[in-house]
């Protein structure tokens, strides 16, 4: 087993275990901080999939932006919710959560089944890509190619994304403004 493989299985274990902890945790604050660990492990997995730029973006946007935003909203939504949350019955398996657990497990089994039926490692286009040497190797410098593609081939989605970001900004500002007496 090579170093990369060992690191991959370590990261995968950390990601899955912390995700399960998020699902099982009693307190909201603890689950938010465990989600932080999940996102970090996922960034590690992106690096092992040879997408270093995506990994850095993940850390900057998810951990620097979204997680801080979630904590901020949580702190703003007051003490009472915190107290309510602690009291409610939050065991991992209880009768009320059985349908959710059943659905998640069955869905997982369906996905794994499809994955093995399609024989994902030997798909046609993947073997074509390998034959044409269209595969990342660990020594490639990827970021400049990403920049060029972003400004040429994928310019339309990029611009659509910028419009969507502006809409989200205006929408969030509109939603959180002080209510005037109409």
């Amino acid at each position, binding site marked *: 087993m090579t170093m990369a493989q060992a690191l991959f299985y370590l990261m995968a274990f950390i990601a899955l275990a912390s995700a399960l902890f998020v699902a099982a945790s009693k307190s909201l604050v603890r689950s938010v901080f465990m989600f932080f660990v999940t996102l970090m492990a*996922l960034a590690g997995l992106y690096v092992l999939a040879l997408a270093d730029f995506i990994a850095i973006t993940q850390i900057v946007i998810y951990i620097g932006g979204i997680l801080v935003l979630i904590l901020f909203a949580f702190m703003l939504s007051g003490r009472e919710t915190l107290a309510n949350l602690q009291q*409610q019955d939050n065991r991992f398996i209880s009768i009320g959560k059985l349908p959710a657990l059943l*659905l998640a497990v069955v869905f997982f089994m369906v996905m794994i089944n499809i994955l093995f039926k399609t024989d994902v490692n030997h798909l046609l286009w993947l073997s074509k890509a*390998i034959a044409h040497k269209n595969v990342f190797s660990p020594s490639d410098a990827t970021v400049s190619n990403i920049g060029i593609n*972003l400004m040429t081939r994928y310019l339309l989605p990029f611009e659509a994304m910028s419009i969507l970001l502006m809409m*989200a900004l205006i929408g969030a500002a509109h*939603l959180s403004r002080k209510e005037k007496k109409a």
Partner: protein
Amino acid sequence: MIPLSDFLIVSAGLFCTGLYIILSKHNAIQILIGIELMLNAAVLNLVAFGKFDRLNNGGQLFALFAIVLAAATTAVALAIILNVYKKYKTIDPGKIDELRD
């Protein structure tokens, strides 16, 4: 080399954990965390397949777009959650059951 199927299995596990969180939690913020987990599983898939597209970077760029999209939607969703909390004093989606103001 790490086989592609391992990435997909990890991603399927994360997706189902997110699904379970969404279905079982009684708190809008935790449901939002579940949605983020599912989005991250999808991004992991995009990145894992994107390894086989060196010239066009299709998978990696759309992973980037998905991350930015998640950031934008989270900002709006949190603003909505704060407003709902102001109005109903609870963020349990099961208890918010009246539409008129």
